[in-house]
């Protein structure tokens, strides 16, 4: 495996260069380049079908782009398997909640600790000694996340039974349990009411403050994007049409056209 550098805050954590992704004849992403700096909240916005989710899938190795290169923590690659991305500190949530439905909140978040739990199978057979110590140690960590996200009351509830807003919160918890370097959030507030959205915004900002996590955020609510993000990248039909601070992007004529649906 390649060497991964430790990146200082403000330096480039991820760099996407000229990435093109095709599905048969459909071009989901066309020659897009952008970067993410350590410690920032980087928003990716754009109308439906713009290629935002596809971009996240490229970053964490679900899709392999036909062209382009991706540099993460100083190591460049064109292909990567998702579990390798996880090992390198990339975590994510999904647009349509992808929780483990049959498991409790606690167990879902515990799964996020899997990579950090390496005690041999032998000890698990007896659920004693090192295996149990490990369980307890990670349980403590998971309880901190549960406190942080204010979901103590649903600790032992199977997540399939939870309302949508809480499911999204558990999913964030599961991603946080991985202690990621880079957290990819795909529409974390979709389908939420105002209060839930405010909570979620608070959790995202707190995550950045408390854990120093770098965040890539896809979101349709422009107000939220402008409030939360340091820099915004705008996609439309798979092309990058704007990139910059929220103010710059807001003033960009192409973006205004894309969002208001003005004919070109």
């Amino acid at each position, binding site marked *: 495996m390649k060497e991964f550098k430790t990146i200082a805050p403000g330096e480039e954590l991820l760099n996407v260069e000229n990435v093109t992704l095709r599905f048969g004849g459909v071009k989901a992403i066309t020659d897009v380049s952008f970067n993410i700096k350590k410690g920032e909240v980087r928003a990716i916005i754009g109308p439906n079908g713009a290629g935002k989710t596809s971009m996240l899938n490229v970053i964490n190795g679900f899709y392999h782009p036909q062209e382009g290169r991706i540099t993460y923590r100083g190591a460049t690659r064109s292909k990567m398997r998702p579990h390798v991305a*996880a090992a390198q500190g990339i975590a994510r949530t999904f647009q349509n909640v992808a929780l483990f439905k049959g498991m409790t909140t606690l167990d879902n978040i515990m799964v996020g600790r*899997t990579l950090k739990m390496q005690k041999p199978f032998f000890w*698990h057979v007896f659920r004693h000694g090192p295996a149990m110590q490990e369980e307890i140690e990670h349980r403590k960590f998971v309880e901190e996340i549960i406190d942080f996200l204010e979901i103590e009351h649903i600790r032992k509830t199977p997540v399939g039974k939870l309302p949508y807003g809480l499911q999204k919160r558990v999913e964030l918890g599961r991603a946080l349990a991985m202690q990621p370097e880079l957290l990819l959030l795909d529409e974390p507030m979709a389908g939420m009411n105002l209060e839930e959205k405010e909570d979620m915004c608070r959790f995202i900002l707190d995550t950045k403050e408390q854990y120093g996590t770098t965040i890539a955020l896809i979101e349709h609510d422009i107000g939220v994007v402008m409030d939360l993000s340091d820099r915004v990248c705008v996609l439309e039909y798979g092309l990058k049409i704007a990139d910059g601070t929220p103010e710059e992007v807001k003033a960009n004529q192409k973006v205004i056209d894309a969002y208001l649906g003005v004919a070109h």
Partner: protein
Amino acid sequence: MFYREAGQFKKTYAADMAVFPILQDRIGLGIILFIAAVVIPLTGSTFFISSVMIPFLVFSLAAMGLNIVTGYTGLISLGSAAFMGVGAFACFKLTTSFPNVNILVWILASGFFSAVIGALFAIPSLRIKGFYLAVATLAAQFFLEWCFVRIPWLYNYSASGAIQVPQRTLFGHIITGANATPTTRYLVLLAIVVFMTWIASNILHGRVGRTFMAVRDMDIAAELMGIRLLPAKLTAFALSSFYCGVAGAVMVTLWYTGGEASDLFNIRQSFYILFMVIIGGLGSLLGCFLGSALLNIVPLVLKYGLPSIGIAIASETAEHINHLLVGALIIFILIVEPHGMARLWQITKQKLRTWPFPY
């Protein structure tokens, strides 16, 4: 009112992570174990012990094996009986080749043989979900069944194809073969099943079990948590085959005292085990016991119970009714409660917790 966790505060995470965190559950388990280990051996008739309890325990163990892979990991296997067969023949060969080693060692060792064979059959098909795996396990079932008949070495070249389980002792007691009493065989079997259930519960409650369930519930998200799907599925398959193998080994050593073994491990047996798991509850250890109990008891009630209360019933009719009932039960479970009897029990417990108040 009596089944409550109120007042039982957990002071440590270890206590909260116990498999039975509620006191009443632990007491209940103690009572069941006491009945199984003391009351039944002292009061049960020979018939009850050898025709009800022993088959019940053997199939509970086999159902546990299948449940690990199907209920917990979400992979369908139609070859559980064949993997039992691997364990059975492995145990027979081992104990006849090395008679001085304790039989318990060989029973557990047979599990490793079927774990390896199970994993070998699973490797090519695990990349693909659902259908192909089912077909591969079906192929394993037919191929292994063929081996059990066609390879005389497996049954030590006996002319009839029957295997004669030799007499083996434990602490001076005869525990296998024609001279072992049903009660002794039952007690040894019970000890093995309790031990194996404890191990399964340990594994399934920890990291490994969570990995299985994550793969079952949402494989793409599991991969993103750093779980490698192929090794995880392979582990589940090997573990499952291990349990089936041990079930097969105890089946020939502690249940059948001799006879033709090749026929025990056919496709019907595989489906029978699958039905136990579905009816008992996918993804529940308790379900393995409930399913095995129900499917073992129904035919006995039809065959012996009804005549004893004066309802004459031909044995073929009993057989047909049994099939009808099992079929109906499966349809009922699939429609009404996909998590089987184990979930019904949980719902009852939930109700008890709040009883006598409706909420």
